[in-house]
């Protein structure tokens, strides 16, 4: 089987979620990549180094500069004439593009796969991860999105893919990019961080989040997260949100501080290797999944933890 993996990038580097998609695709067969964008020579060269990559298709065109699905999906659909599976990371970009490709090809997409059982059979979470479905596709071609935390990341070196320019596609003329507000941060990205420190509603305010959670994260070089309750209460911006409706994460260590452990939050972090919970309510559901639990007032113990660790 020949697969085509969508390379998500920021114009200069390949994003981590792509590497998990490459691993998933390698379980199906030969791995080809698609790098689309404007001025993406550097990304294409980096992509060609990813271990196990056979070929890198490069579509360099201003119309592909902002990942507009109206322009990208027809390009992918055309390339799918010579590929058997389209594989994209289940990021907001991948989720935006892949179903549009699937419908153009008249196939059903299989979303957020967790494993490849055989080349037609996959597992995927349903009901926010409260159940796992094993599903089998009967379509001639596959369109898959891949949950990044479920697969190892492919190595970014050792490959020697052949880079090939693609001239297909252009501007469909129905959409344009206006602007973006992307939070700039020195911290690791939530979805690829090794350690995450998350705060919940028990913090009570944005000031307390800054005062209690941020110093611990700083000391550990960790990413910052939050429960939906804390986001809804306005303590932190929405892109901090971990959970069913936010980011799905699986770091080495996840600190849940002042987070009760609603189903919707657990759905986003329960695959973390080690979960540390600090909560003053000993009956909080978070303790049912925590490897290390400390029943205490977070305002007392988190500063102490920050000082001692």
């Amino acid at each position, binding site marked *: 089987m020949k697969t085509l993996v969508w390379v998500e990038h920021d114009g200069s580097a390949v994003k981590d979620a792509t590497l998990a998609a490459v691993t998933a695709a390698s379980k199906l067969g030969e791995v080809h990549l698609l790098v689309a964008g404007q001025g993406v020579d550097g990304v294409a060269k980096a992509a060609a180094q990813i271990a196990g990559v056979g070929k890198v298709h490069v579509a360099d065109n201003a119309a592909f500069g902002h990942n507009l699905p109206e322009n990208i999906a027809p390009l992918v659909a055309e390339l799918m004439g010579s590929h058997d599976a389209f594989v994209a990371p289940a990021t907001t970009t991948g989720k935006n593009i892949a179903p549009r490709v699937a419908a153009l090809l008249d196939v059903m997409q299989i*979303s957020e796969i967790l494993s490849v059982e055989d080349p037609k059979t996959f597992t995927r979470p349903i009901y926010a991860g409260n159940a796992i479905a094993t599903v089998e596709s009967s379509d001639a071609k596959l369109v898959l999105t891949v949950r990044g935390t479920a697969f190892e990341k492919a190595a970014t070196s050792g490959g020697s893919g052949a880079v090939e320019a693609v001239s297909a596609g252009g501007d469909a003329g129905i959409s344009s990019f206006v602007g973006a507000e992307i939070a700039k941060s020195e911290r690791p990205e939530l979805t690829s961080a090794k350690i995450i420190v998350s705060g919940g509603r028990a913090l009570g305010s944005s000031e307390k989040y800054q005062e209690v959670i941020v110093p611990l994260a700083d000391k550990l070089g960790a990413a910052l997260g939050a429960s939906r309750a804390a986001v809804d209460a306005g303590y932190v911006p929405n892109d901090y949100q971990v959970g069913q409706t936010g980011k799905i994460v699986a770091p080495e260590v996840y600190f849940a501080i002042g987070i009760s452990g609603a*189903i919707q939050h657990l759905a986003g972090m329960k695959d973390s290797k080690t979960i540390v919970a600090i909560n003053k309510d000993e009956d909080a559901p978070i303790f049912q999944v925590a490897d290390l639990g400390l029943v205490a007032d977070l305002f007392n113990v988190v500063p102490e933890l920050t000082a001692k660790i």
Partner: protein
Amino acid sequence: MKILVPVKRVLDYNVKPRVKADGTGVDLANVKMSMNPFDEIGVEEAIRLKEKGVATEIIAVSVGPAKAQETLRTALAMGADRAILVQTDDAVEPLGVAKILKAIADAEQPGLVILGKQAIDDDNNQTGQMLAALTGWAQGTFASAVNVEGDHVSVTREVDGGLETVKLKLPAIVTTDLRLNEPRYASLPNIMKAKSKPLDTKSPADYGVDTSPRVKTVKVSEPPVRSAGVKVADVDELVAKLKAMGVHS
């Protein structure tokens, strides 16, 4: 312009899903069912556009069993003008739903179709994007703000790491994210009024759509259970355990 709002009847989001013992799916017998929360946000957004004078008519559509009528009545009670139930007892996949919606869009010629970004049962996150592909219209997914400006709509999208704004030519497809709005509750008088609003019942065959599944569910199982670990007595013990795992500054 008209706005089409597809809505799905799903297991209520407050109910913990239980996997059936025979592994064929999640038990939906005798449990509370509600409108998919993301679809509720879609209905609310359509109503707000009507209140602003942008939209003239809101048509709610559901593809599902006879009971999906209740979901449509909820949309009507919130403020939709009329409803179409495409009745079927089969589970219709996003591609099938998108094909039915495409046929309805052809007939109704809406300016916008506002869908939830995903249904909280199958978590597919596909229908809006697929409908956009089939109609050839632009798509603004995961919307946190929607502004109609003349023959365009500008959509602010929640993307990884922040927000992004795109400008789309109308007609267009919008899918909702959580922060787009807070849906209203239907008032009792409006619930009563909704009972007399028009609701057409159709079948997938009326639209010439073959809804046979492309994906077979082999089995549905419980996720791996994570067991509770240990409770530590104080910060010193926690620090010692973390250091033993290699976690320190």
